[in-house]
């Protein structure tokens, strides 16, 4: 095997220049330093060892190209095809140019769903970030016992499998025997007795949002808490000495230090919420009357449910493009902090 052939032909340091001092590589030899235990510097061996990293990466690259790259390309190809049940059954490939895109972009339904997805994502992410940050700050302030208790609650919500959580929320919000309706009734809001939560657009979205926010807060809160503990106490003391109040300290010390964290986490949450499928679909299949379909669910219902596979593919390509734009912003934020990759 190539890796065996020679000791350290490829320089084995992860972070160049930071730790240790790698032997200087002679120019013109492809950056290969002299091997430490200099054995067999044969040309063939060196060549093999030079390709060692690529051989190690090969399985990962092949798998990614075949299982991620190919579906992405296929998705693009499908979006230019007229693919309905007839073509599907007879295995006909019928190209129809940009017809699918034209149809999708012209339909008012698509734009309604897009707008809905954007509002849905914005509302969820705003709630997640604000509540998550508050819970994180609270964690930082609590005594040890109470912090452990709250952490336990957060971990429970975080660990709950999405599908199971969805089922539990359906039971909590069950119209007849659900504990939520009982509680609202007991608190004096009697019209909520036997209220059908999944009967209306807003109330269905309320349940979905609560579910997503409930599950997402722990990630933000724990991360913020972990980041907070890295801020040296001296900074706070100095601010207090200068007479800053709690708000001022948050605005002038905590937030600036954690700004990159907030940016990165916000983008992550935007991407996650925007492509959320399981919660939206499993609560009410996008109902009532398709009023709670977000883009991923819309692509699924159009493509698979209504068997307009070409149309569905076009919708999903547009969704992916949208996500790519979001992701490029995320990577800009991340790469700025990651000098060393």
């Amino acid at each position, binding site marked *: 095997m190539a*890796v065996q052939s020679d000791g*350290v032909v*490829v*320089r*084995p*340091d*992860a972070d*160049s220049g930071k730790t240790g001092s790698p032997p200087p590589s002679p120019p013109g030899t492809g*950056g290969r330093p002299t091997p430490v235990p200099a054995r067999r510097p044969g040309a063939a061996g060196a060549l093999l060892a030079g390709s*060692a*990293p690529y051989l*190690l*990466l090969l*399985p990962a690259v092949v798998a*990614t190209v075949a*299982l991620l790259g190919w579906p992405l390309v296929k998705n693009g190809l499908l979006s230019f095809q007229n693919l309905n049940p007839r073509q599907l059954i007879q295995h006909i490939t019928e190209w129809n140019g940009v017809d699918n895109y034209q149809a999708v972009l012209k339909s008012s339904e698509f734009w309604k769903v897009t707008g809905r997805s954007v509002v849905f994502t914005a509302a969820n992410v705003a709630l997640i970030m604000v509540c998550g940050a508050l819970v994180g700050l*609270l964690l930082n*302030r*609590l005594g040890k016992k109470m912090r452990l208790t*709250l*952490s336990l*609650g957060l971990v*429970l919500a975080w*660990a*709950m499998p*999405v*599908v*199971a959580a969805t*089922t*539990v*929320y359906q*039971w*909590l919000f069950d119209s007849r*025997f659900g*504990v939520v309706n*009982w509680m609202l009734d007991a608190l004096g809001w009697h019209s909520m007795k036997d209220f059908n939560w999944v009967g209306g657009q807003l109330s269905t979205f309320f349940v979905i949002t609560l579910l997503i926010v*409930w599950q997402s807060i722990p*990630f933000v809160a*724990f991360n913020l808490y*972990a980041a907070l503990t890295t801020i040296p106490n001296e900074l706070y003391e100095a601010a207090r000495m200068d007479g800053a109040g709690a708000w001022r300290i948050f605005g002038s010390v905590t937030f600036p230090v954690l700004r*990159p*964290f907030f940016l*990165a*986490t916000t983008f*992550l949450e935007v991407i996650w919420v925007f*492509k959320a*499928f*399981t919660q939206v679909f499993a609560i009410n299949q996008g109902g009532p009357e398709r009023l709670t379909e977000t*883009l991923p669910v819309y*692509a*699924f219902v159009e493509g*698979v449910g209504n068997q307009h596979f070409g149309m*569905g593919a076009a919708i*999903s390509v547009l969704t*992916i493009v949208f*996500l790519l734009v979001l*992701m490029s912003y995320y*990577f800009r934020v991340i790469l700025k*902090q990651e000098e060393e*990759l």
Partner: protein
Amino acid sequence: MRRSLLGRTWPNVVAAGLFVFFAFPVYWMFSTAFKPNKDVISETPVFVPFDATLKHFGTAVDADNFWTLVGNSFTVTVCAVLLSLLIALLASFAIARMRFKGRKSFVLAVMMAQMAPWEVMTIAIYMIVRDKDMLNSLVPLTLFYMIMVLPFTIWTLRGFIAAVPKELEESAMVDGCTRTQAFVKVIFPLLAPGLMSTSLFGFITAWNEFPLVLILNKDPEAQTLPLWLTQFQTAFGDDWGATMAASSMFTVPVLVVFLFLQRKAVGGMTAGAVKG
């Protein structure tokens, strides 16, 4: 600077309220699962299941194909995780310990692949799998779950490998080990905890996956537990006791894994999200 009594109490009160908010749905799932039917379907909710029963678990377990689905879920998850671990081990060793052209682009590709929008790629995957005539088979599911967890696995393993001091490896090689031997005898044993936690996270992802199995495996015998769980209500009507028992059984493995991993989770996620 002493805080007033109010200033010291309110965080605790709020924390207690939040604890209830976060823990209650989980508690409600377990407690409903153990309650006799008359307590599940009652005008006033019964908050503590005093006369607990295992009847609902019996109903869930006796459901058609239950054990087949448990087998499917375990097979798919375990195979996917092991496969991705194997591939990731090779790749992450290369990016953690070697310098080569294209390393940076590879790392970037891994980060991007980690965010692949699988939820919206289901139609294309359906077509590919259908053309290969492999609908209702566990093989495509395993492969796609493998690729879903692969980027994350590479990314975390890279961190664990980088954390093993390279002097250890070098001294092994000075002592006459080849690089492969050094890896197998020195690095690999030190990686055990890293491999463990990485694979458990992969386990959680694959165990939970829903959109893909929804579209690929319609055959009741080829499904996995998440799909079964969402259809449980349709199958059992309003038998909430049994539905919650099923959810509980589905949740327990994940919960155990997660409680075990929680500390690493926070560290790992922060490392992945904020600083390399």
